[in-house]
């Protein structure tokens, strides 16, 4: 295969991969009880917003990088990302690109700065924790599906098997109540205010914080799926890049 053909194939793949993922749906809004609220404190209200139905893919992020080369691997300042930024992309003549097999997989190994820049470039932004958690608690049939048996199971299946199989293409599972895919069981996702909650032992002093025992001040100590999400967010710094951390945008 010659270079021109490869280039053509690349363009076609980009188009195929790029079209579906830009879909957004309206989240009506409502109220929810985040993990760190006690049972008698008021619920958090979430105003209506729009959310990407799918996590941002490698193909979409590649298109962004093409338009904004300052976010190409190798060009980003060490203050805005760690060394592992887009480490799963491969070098070609014009720079780094995702492997063809990864095009429809969620983009990972991106820092908060990069994710934030991507959403801004689309006229969107990263979801807040409240927005993400509100959508994340939906099951296939209910706005709040956290008490359904399979809710936690999806996350467990992910850590039980996900690493062995690697990342999947986005949108393979069932959408949730809102029509949003892959909220659980594929990747962790950046939020705008990812480091606004604490999971440290000295945090027991604050009313909306946790002790390391992870139950002081929590609404549901058995909601370990939520603990895992708050845990991963707390462990992050904005320049970190992780193999299993991606993002989606809201408006």
């Amino acid at each position, binding site marked *: 295969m010659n270079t021109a053909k490869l280039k053509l194939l690349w363009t076609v793949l980009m188009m195929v991969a790029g079209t579906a993922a830009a879909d957004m749906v309206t989240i009506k809004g409502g109220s929810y009880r985040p993990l760190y609220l006690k049972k008698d404190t008021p619920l958090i209200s979430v105003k209506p917003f729009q959310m990407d139905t799918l996590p941002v893919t490698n193909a979409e992020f590649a298109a962004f990088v093409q338009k904004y080369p300052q976010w190409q691997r190798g060009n980003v300042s060490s203050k805005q990302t760690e060394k592992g930024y887009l480490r799963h992309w491969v070098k070609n003549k014009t720079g780094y690109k995702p492997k063809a097999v990864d095009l429809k997989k969620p983009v990972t190994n991106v820092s908060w700065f990069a994710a934030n820049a991507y959403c801004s470039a689309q006229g969107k932004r990263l979801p807040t924790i409240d927005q993400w958690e509100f959508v994340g608690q939906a099951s296939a049939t209910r706005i709040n599906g956290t008490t359904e048996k399979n809710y936690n199971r999806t996350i*467990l299946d992910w850590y039980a098997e996900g690493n062995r199989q690697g990342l999947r293409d986005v949108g393979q599972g069932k959408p949730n109540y809102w029509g949003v895919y892959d909220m659980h069981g594929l990747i962790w996702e950046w939020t705008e205010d990812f480091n606004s909650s604490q999971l440290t*032992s000295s945090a027991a002093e604050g009313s909306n914080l946790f002790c390391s*025992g992870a139950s002081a001040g929590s609404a549901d100590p*058995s909601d370990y799926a939520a603990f895992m999400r708050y*845990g*991963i967010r707390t462990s992050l710094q904005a320049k970190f890049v992780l193999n299993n951390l991606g993002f989606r945008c809201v408006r």
Partner: protein
Amino acid sequence: MKHHVLAALIASAFALTACDQKFEAKPEDTATSAASEQQADDSVAQGELPVIDAVMTQAPNVPPPIDRDYPAKVIVKMEVIEKVMKMADGVDYKYWTFGGDVPGKFIRVRQGDQVEVQFSNHPDSTVPHNVDFHGVTGPGGGAEGSFTAPGHTSTFSFKALQPGLYIYHCATAPVGMHIANGMYGLILVEPKEGLPKVDKEFYVVQGDFYTKGKYGETGLQPFDMEKAIKEEPEYVVFNGHVGAIAGDNALKANVGETVRIFVGNGGPNLVSSFHVIGEIFDTVRVEGGDLVNKNIQTTLVPAGGAAIVEFKLDVPGSFTLVDHSIFRAFNKGALGQLKVEGPANKEIYSGKLSDSVYQPEGGAIQTVPLTASEAARVAAGPAKAENKDDQIKLGQAIYNANCMACHGAEGKGVAGAFPPLAGSDYLNADPKRGIHAILRGVSGKVTVNGQEYNSVMPAVALNDEDAANVLTYVLNSFGNNGGQIHASDVAKERQSK
């Protein structure tokens, strides 16, 4: 080499002394004394400590005793790996591990050491992790200092202030889940003077596991939070897996050797009744601390705790390690083996000396034959009353066994509940009422000696002989009018409807 380093340390301690007025030791007169070593231990600044990589071993192995009489800066490198491993034959589980297996590696440091923990979380991990050392004095036991996202390394340091055997475990939310997935291990802070020398040391940690499928259900078994909260594990195992220290993996030693087992309990929930079948622990360092107990059969190891047990091997054989909360051992996996080779000692343990037939009810083979009169008694069966006096005698025993509880030792009964048999006008008027009472019971109103009783006496399961005897006893006791009841009387009453 060792002395050379020590000399250098002492020298540097004294160099410090010169600038530190609080330090009272006088270098010229204590250069070789134990006191000066103590001061060297306590006063050397961290930066001047020799730097040593910790020797860390996977269970059931233990790092060698510390051959050092001065403090050091010990580098402990820990790596978190999430991986699928075998829980039992055909059963897989996604373990979260310190260092690739359960328990995490054994860490051995010396009291007074400065321990630097370099804590790495593998890039493939799904979640952040950290470590809480029970041997650390400080908030979270190092949990905050080591809280680490996937693909990162955190470093923190602590001083091993107190000697003892301590659990370390992951303390990231949800803590119970991280522990339940296998994130625990032991660190020994060896006392400055060291532990007494033994021939073999082993590392065993108990843990309870909560799988969605029942014990033995095959396939990859996910963690079950509901069972964990209920504290109903499917598996209770030593060293992370069913059979981890049994069969080919058994601990091995020889007759005549002394053995020390560092026993930990990762939990998360169950407390262990640690026991070695066929051995008595010569010493137990209770909960891994300074208290030494001797001649112990079973020692309690708390969840998140430890114990050090020591014993000498006197005889060969397979000695089974169990949690003596025994259904865990035989139904949930808490079994290990210590295989001991060497010559037998028949005095300490004979083994089986003989096997002979046991026939408690007699039969063709009798090791001690009966005498002729004894044989006749066997043939005759239970004793029979030959006359009224015999009946009274035998009847008393039957009364004591069957009647006394309600009617009393003196036949006075209990007012309002059980009528008296003593001087009983009811019984004396018609002794056969007694037969009826024994065979069929009594219920409803009866009047005895002017008092009305309205209660229930159940029928008493006595044969004709015994019923006749007890009634004859009663009629001739307690101030009653006398008389005699024969077995044939009872039989006759029994026949009638």
